[in-house]
Structures are given as structure tokens and as C-alpha cells.
């Protein structure tokens, strides 16, 4: 069965061109990166690594920044938060309520270690309230961490204004751009961002590569100690095939891909209106490929399972795992009731999807939503 994959915000298929760029670093140039005083094989690897680093810094107009390669965005976010916190030793950290779990749970960890965590709320579209943010920051704020694009709704934050607030308040700003880069331009010569997390596997690059872009002047405590790789901030053999793939994925990403995906989303948004009683949880200003929808009167897991059996891959914000059933913290922060959050599904489109796949999925949805509503004690036909 040809499956319809609408979970591109989780991860994407690796582009053939990316894979072809990576293969030689598995099969021929497989040495680890090493200094000029070792051997030729190591130098080839070193050159590939450093050229990827220079390319990424240049792409972000990041002068006076380091590009610290890590294994994934969760690690980059950990390095930013714990790296700053352990280096500063005390103070408070300000984050939004809708950050990824790699931020939220790292903050919980830091709270146990004695740091104060302050949470900025969002409006019903998931946009951070800048006044509240401004008021939360004080002289003891060591870091503000607010994402660029949200992982569930695709909501876009005004990172330029957030950067300005941090600059005025004289505190560091970390931005998790895992879901926005390279869909949206980030110019570090203009934006006031001190630390930036970027990934690789949501824009047709491989898993196993990510980077924390950090200003040279910022002191960070490493999470992994050992060898002297990555500015002594991240010990361990670099994943050169993945890093080479990440570079290639950035190189070949262009406006055409953005427009193609945006077109899929617009088409889906038009067609989904054929289903009554829905709520679109993604605002207009959002990621070109992410749509979060609540199907009223039904629970998300049932719907994703039915779609899965038909060959459609999507995810739900509802997790019925325990006695206290947790709904998505993002949707709750946006003011949705638990009930609405439980019926939410994220569709995320990518460049390998087609309009025909959307048509097919809409037909499946019509049937499955009707079936589950017929089952639901909450649904009364009107």
C-alpha cells in the first residue's frame, strides 16, 4: 500500500540529492575529522566538516558566532539552556508556555536545580504576549528562550521584537528555530538572537545532525565532556555524513519548495471545510506546511488510528496514556478546552506530497469523522 505521509513536521524523507552527498562519507571518506598533524583521510573529513560549518554560519549571516554541531535539536536546546544556566549558576529563565518538550522539560529539570522558571502566556493563536514577556524579564533573568515556529500549530512568533526586548533588557535570547529554518529567513546580523537552534530532518536532511549557533562571547558549560571537538563544547566524534547531508539540504531548499508546500496547505484548508464542526487551530501567520485541526465531538486517537489503517500518517495532540489524560500543553495554553484539545490532529505537508493525496485524505476523513461522531455521546445531529 502506498502510504500518505502527512507527518512532515516530525521528520521528512531524505532527499536523494542529500543522500548522494552523504554516501561517500560512509563508504570512502569515513575517517573522523582530525588536525593537520594526523593523516590525509582525517583531513578530508575535517574539510567537509569545516566547510559545512562555514556554510551554515554564512547562510545565517552569523559573524562572530560559533556553529556547534550536535546530534539533534533536543540536544541543541539542552546545550543552550543548561549550558547557560550552569555557566551563570543562578537566576531566572523566561520561556513561553508552548515551547517544545525539549525546552519545557529541560526547564523543569533546571527548576529542580534551583533556577526560577517564568512562563510567558500566549493569545488564542499561540502568539506570545510581548507586554507580559517584557514584564517577566528582570535583572536576574539569565536567558529568554522563545521558539520561532510552534511544533503543533505552526504559529510564528515575532522573533525580531522579542530580540529587541531582550536587547533592551540586557539578557540573552535563545531561539529554537527547529521548525522554521530554512522555511523562514533568519539573519543574525540583523536579529538580536544570541543562541539559535536549527535542525536538519524536517527539511529533507538526515537525522543525526543539528546545530546550536552561539555568539562567540557567550560562555557555555558543555553537557558532554571528552575530546576537544566542537570548541570544547561538545565532545565526541562528529557525525560527518549527517552534517554533510544537513548542508546539502539547506543548499537545495528554495522558495519553490516553500510555495509548493504552502499551496498544499491552502488547498487542504479549502477542502477541509466540507467537514462540519471543525476548528482550525493554526493561525494565518504560521508554518507553510502545518495545519492543526480539531474535529469536534470526537477524540483524536480514534481518528488517527482509523486514518492509519487506511494508510494515512498523522498525529494527535491527545495522549490517552494514563488515568489523568494529558491534552496538548500547546493547545491548552492557547485557551482551548481539554475537550477541544483532545480532538486535535496535526497534518503536516511536505514537498513529496500531492494534491491527490489531500483529496483522498479528505474523503477518508468525511467517512471516519462521521463514523466516530455517530459513536459519540457528545454529538447530536442538527
Amino acid at each position, binding site marked *: *500500500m502506498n502510504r500518505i505521509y502527512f507527518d512532515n513536521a516530525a521528520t521528512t524523507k531524505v532527499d536523494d540529492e542529500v543522500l548522494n552527498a552523504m554516501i561517500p562519507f560512509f563508504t570512502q571518506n569515513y575517517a573522523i575529522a582530525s588536525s593537520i598533524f594526523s593523516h590525509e583521510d582525517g583531513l578530508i573529513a575535517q574539510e567537509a566538516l569545516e566547510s559545512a560549518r562555514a556554510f551554515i554560519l554564512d547562510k545565517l549571516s552569523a559573524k562572530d558566532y560559533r556553529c556547534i554541531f550536535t546530534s539533534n535539536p533536543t540536544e541543541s536546546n539542552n546545550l543552550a539552556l543548561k549550558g547557560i544556566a550552569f555557566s551563570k549558576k543562578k537566576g531566572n529563565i523566561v520561556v513561553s508556555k508552548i515551547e517544545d518538550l525539549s525546552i519545557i522539560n529541560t526547564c523543569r529539570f533546571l527548576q529542580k536545580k534551583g533556577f526560577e522558571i517564568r512562563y510567558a502566556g500566549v493569545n488564542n493563536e499561540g502568539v506570545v504576549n510581548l507586554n507580559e514577556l517584557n514584564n517577566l524579564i528582570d535583572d536576574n533573568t539569565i536567558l529568554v528562550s522563545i521558539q520561532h515556529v510552534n511544533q503543533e500549530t505552526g504559529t510564528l512568533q515575532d522573533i525580531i521584537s522579542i530580540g529587541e526586548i531582550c536587547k533592551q533588557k540586557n539578557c540573552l535570547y535563545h531561539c529554537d528555530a527547529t521548525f522554521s529554518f530554512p522555511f523562514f529567513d533568519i539573519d543574525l546580523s540583523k536579529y538580536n538572537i544570541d543562541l539559535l537552534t536549527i535542525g536538519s530532518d524536517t527539511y529533507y536532511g538526515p537525522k543525526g545532525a543539528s546545530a546550536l549557533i552561539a555568539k562567540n562571547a557567550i560562555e557555555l558549560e558543555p553537557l558532554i565532556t571528552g575530546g576537544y571537538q566542537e570548541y570544547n563544547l561538545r565532545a565526541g566524534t562528529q557525525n560527518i555524513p549527517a552534517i554533510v547531508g544537513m548542508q546539502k539540504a539547506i543548499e537545495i531548499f528554495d522558495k519553490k519548495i516553500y510555495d509548493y508546500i504552502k499551496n498544499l496547505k491552502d488547498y487542504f484548508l479549502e477542502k477541509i471545510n466540507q467537514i462540519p464542526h471543525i476548528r482550525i487551530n493554526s493561525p494565518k501567520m504560521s508554518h507553510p506546511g502545518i495545519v492543526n485541526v480539531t474535529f469536534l*465531538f*470526537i*477524540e*483524536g*486517537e*480514534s481518528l488517527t*488510528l*482509523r486514518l*492509519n*489503517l487506511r494508510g494515512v500518517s498523522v498525529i494527535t495532540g*491527545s495522549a*490517552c*496514556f*494514563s*488515568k*489523568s*489524560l494529558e*491534552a496538548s500543553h500547546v493547545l491548552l495554553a492557547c485557551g482551548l*478546552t*481539554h*475537550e477541544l484539545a*483532545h480532538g486535535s490532529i496535526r497534518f503536516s505537508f511536505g514537498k513529496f506530497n500531492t494534491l491527490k493525496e489531500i483529496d483522498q485524505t479528505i474523503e477518508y476523513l468525511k467517512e471516519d469523522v462521521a463514523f466516530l461522531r*455517530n*459513536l*459519540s*455521546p*457528545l454529538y447530536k445531529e442538527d
Partner: protein
Amino acid sequence: MPSVPYSKKVMDLFLNPKNLGEIENPDAQATEGSPACGDMVQLQLKVNKDTHVIEDIKFKSFGCASNIATASIITEIAKGKTIEEAKNLKYSQIVDELGGLPAVKVHCSILAIQSLKRAIENYEEKNGLVPKDKPTDEALIKERLRGVIDPNTGRDLVGSKLLSKIDFVDGKLTIYLNLKDTNQFANAIKEEIVEKFEYRWDVKSIDVVFLD
């Protein structure tokens, strides 16, 4: 294709549930869980007044696949049983009948059992079958209030500390809640509380007081 984490029986009932729907003029009914928790079951019964045999039973469900499957199977198991037999069903029987449930989903079978017990209680209370040696007391009241969920937090009234005080004097039940009467869910919560006690033989009136 790798399989989903459910048994074949669970999947069969998820896709083709049995005894789905509602009964016209049911003799008893119960709705347990809440949409706020993402887990809700409604059961309706037709009971033979002479033999107390459950002659018909139908369900509706809001929840995941195991919620739907457990609700469906309990209707099949309970049908044809007397209310006394049905009362003694254990959640493990449901899990066994379904060919097992993932550990994180066992709570669905408990919710299904709870729904059946409440529906039977509802029948007994409506028909004066409740043994009068078991009067309503604070433990019973609290137990039932644990079945009322505050949609604001997704937690039950007792666990969420929304319950401030219980008064039960001369058949007059008064529940005090730490909730403003202007809260959007105040009325829904009040209705649910009333449903839980309206057929208790020794409860003459029910009042819900919203404190600020």
C-alpha cells in the same frame, strides 16, 4: 505492515462496534468519564422488572480505540445477565475477553465497568431496590463526586480541590464548590452532580453552592 498495539478483538470492535446507539425510554443510564479527559462512556439499559435481567443495553463512546472496544464488549457481556450478576463483573474479565489491553489502556476497562455499575445503581435507585441499610454518607458522596470532572482542569471535583464542603442533613444535600457561578462550566458541573444523587432513596434535595 507493523501492527497497532491492540489485539485483533479490540480492532474488530473498534471498527465494528456491537450494541452501538441509544435506547428509547431506557430503564436506566449512566455516563462516566468526561470529554475533558478524552474518555467518556454512556450506557443505557432495558431491564426486565420481574427477573431483573438486562434485556437490552446500548453504548456510546467518546475516546480512543480501547475505550470504544471496552464499552462495546461490556454490552455483549452484560446482555442477558441479571443486574446482580452484572454488578460482579471485574475489569480483568473485560481485558481477558478482549485478548488483552496495553497496560496504559487498562483504565478504559475500569471506566467501562464503572459505567455499568452506575447504570445498575441508577436502575436500583429509580426502582427502590437500594438496600436501606446503606444510607448516603460522606464516603459515598465523595466517591460519586470523583466521577464528576471539571472541564476547566480536566480533573475530578475531589482531586482538583474544587470541592470545598459537603453538608448532608435530613436528606438535604448541599455541595459547596470553590468555583465562581459565572464560570462557563458551572451549570454543566451542577447538572452532573444532580444526576449522581437524584435517585438516592435518602436524598430529598440537592443544592450546589458556588463560592468565590
